């Protein structure tokens, strides 16, 4: 079963990962361009995490998405599909031709994730369904003495779903330590800024028995350090609270009030692209 990932897809340095995050942001912009709207802000805010996860943390086979020896990335927040599809394209699972059809009628790549696409582990559109499935996968791996890990990404708004906490309680109760939950706290949800008082988020995860770190989620070095600190298989599930900025990397999007599902005028795309390049050049 163990089949190590080719070394050329494992980026080790922060500079390399930062470059890959920029490539992801470029890809995301390209997928969204000319469609007038989309979950672009979420894609931008999570690009740094995905660069670290896919180019440093996960073991997988670029030639075989179904390789049984793989680590698994479970994206609970299905509306972040634009970011997941961007990275799955970058690692070779999704051909370039599919990117431009993203979100269009009949396209394979929809505005929300479906697990019939290569590399997509769960169908994630109905929030609150990812962590429990990640717990099940972690239990399955443990039963098989599989060395792999499960990394599950949720969002702060999603923490309002009770099923998240059912899964959080089960994970620590079953002493699962091959699972990392990453909570993208970008402070926005469908109705605007986070609509309930959900802080203190890190304390909640600690109270549920999770070994927890809270970091700047758009700081590549901080993300690398958090994963490094949470490698130990010590009978505790791990959580990383990512504090991110919606639209990160594109100042116009970072300033936009209604960032959950952004509207972009046709003439704005070129400007956004210029901002991305000048801001990260």
């Amino acid at each position, binding site marked *: 079963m163990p089949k190590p990932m080719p070394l050329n897809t494992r980026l080790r340095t922060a500079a390399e990962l930062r470059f890959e995050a920029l490539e992801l942001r470029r890809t995301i912009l390209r997928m969204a361009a000319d469609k007038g709207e989309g979950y672009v802000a979420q894609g931008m805010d999570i690009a740094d995490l995905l660069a670290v996860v896919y180019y440093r943390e996960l073991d997988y086979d670029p030639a075989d998405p179904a390789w*049984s020896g793989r680590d698994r990335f479970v994206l609970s927040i299905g509306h972040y599909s634009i970011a997941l599809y961007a990275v799955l394209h970058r690692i070779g699972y999704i051909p370039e031709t599919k990117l431009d059809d993203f979100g269009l009628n009949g396209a394979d790549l929809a505005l929300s994730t479906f697990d019939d696409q290569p590399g997509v582990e769960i169908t994630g559109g109905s929030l609150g369904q990812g962590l429990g499935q990640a*717990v*099940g996968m972690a239990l399955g791996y443990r039963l098989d003495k599989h060395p792999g890990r499960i990394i599950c990404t949720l969002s702060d708004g999603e923490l309002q779903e009770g099923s998240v906490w059912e899964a959080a309680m089960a994970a620590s109760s079953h002493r699962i330590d091959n699972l990392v939950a990453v909570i993208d706290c970008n402070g926005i949800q469908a109705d605007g800024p986070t609509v309930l008082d959900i802080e203190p988020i890190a304390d909640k995860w600690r109270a549920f028995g999770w070994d927890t770190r809270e970091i700047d989620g758009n700081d590549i070095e901080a993300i690398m350090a958090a994963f490094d600190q949470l490698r130990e298989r010590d009978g505790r599930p791990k959580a990383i609270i990512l504090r991110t900025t919606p639209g990160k990397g594109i100042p116009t999007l970072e300033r936009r009030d209604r960032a959950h599902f952004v509207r972009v005028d046709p003439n704005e795309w070129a400007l956004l692209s210029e901002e991305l390049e000048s801001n990260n050049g």
Partner: protein
Amino acid sequence: MVELKSGRAGGMGEILDVEGPYEVAPLGRALVELAEHRPEIVGLTADMGRFSDIHPFRDAHPDRFFQVGMAEADLLLIAAGLAKTGKIAYCTSYAAFITRRALDFLIIACAHSKANVKILAGMPGLMNPYGATHQATDDIAVLRMIPDLSIIDPCDATELAQVVKAVADIEGTVYVRSLRGKVPVVFDPDEYTFEFGKAKELRTGSEVGVISSGFMTQRALVAADAATEHGVSAGVLHVPTIKPFDTEGVLRFVAGVERLVIAENHQMSGGLATLVVEALYDAGIQVPLIRIGIQHRFHEAGSQAYMEEKGGLDQTRITRAVIDGI
């Protein structure tokens, strides 16, 4: 007539008709047998190990058993996650909690993902002494609209044990209306074989045809025997697989009788009777029929006999419908 305050439930969610032979916890025993040579089988429960009869599996294979606590959504999510790592995940809770509280999780994480999750739902229909909160009189109506989900309603201990083993090889998510405790043995295990998707003609008759599922088939057989004694020729078609529905088998059976009685442990709408009526209508067939099922209202707490008589499932009612057509 059942006297008010005359008694309590004989057993938690057990069938009444256990004067004859019965087996204790056929679900758990069959699962233990199956799991001995199928290492990919895992079992889960949401604090219903004892009351769903999965406890023999828990005791035999503690490493493959997962207690998730009182959390039905999480039960189905963890089961789906285990299934995605190659396991066949058997999970148990009460039918009411599975089909109401955890419905979205059943639909998306299990059925839509074609996850190898086998849901053994305890006390379906009118089988729970705690009243409306615990009585899934509507579970088939709720579930039959979900694509990529199979639904099975076994009659007795023999069939339940066969179903527990058969569903391991049925692709995707399967919902089984389970039976617990002392479960009557109606079918001879040497003679009866459950076939997924197939209705079984248990009695052949020319005047009245009884179409039934679940434990109501036991009562259908008693009613058919009584009808024969009264000179009424009665057939019985047992329909254990509710979805996919055996339309062909039902139409073939209906062609040989003059009138129908449809009997199910479910509300009279949305379940077996509705499926039969839809099949008849689509085929352009009109035939007189009586529906025996649970009345459309929230039901009382009480003993099985009390619930059934008030709810509309008792033996007297089905026998009268078969013999007298009322």
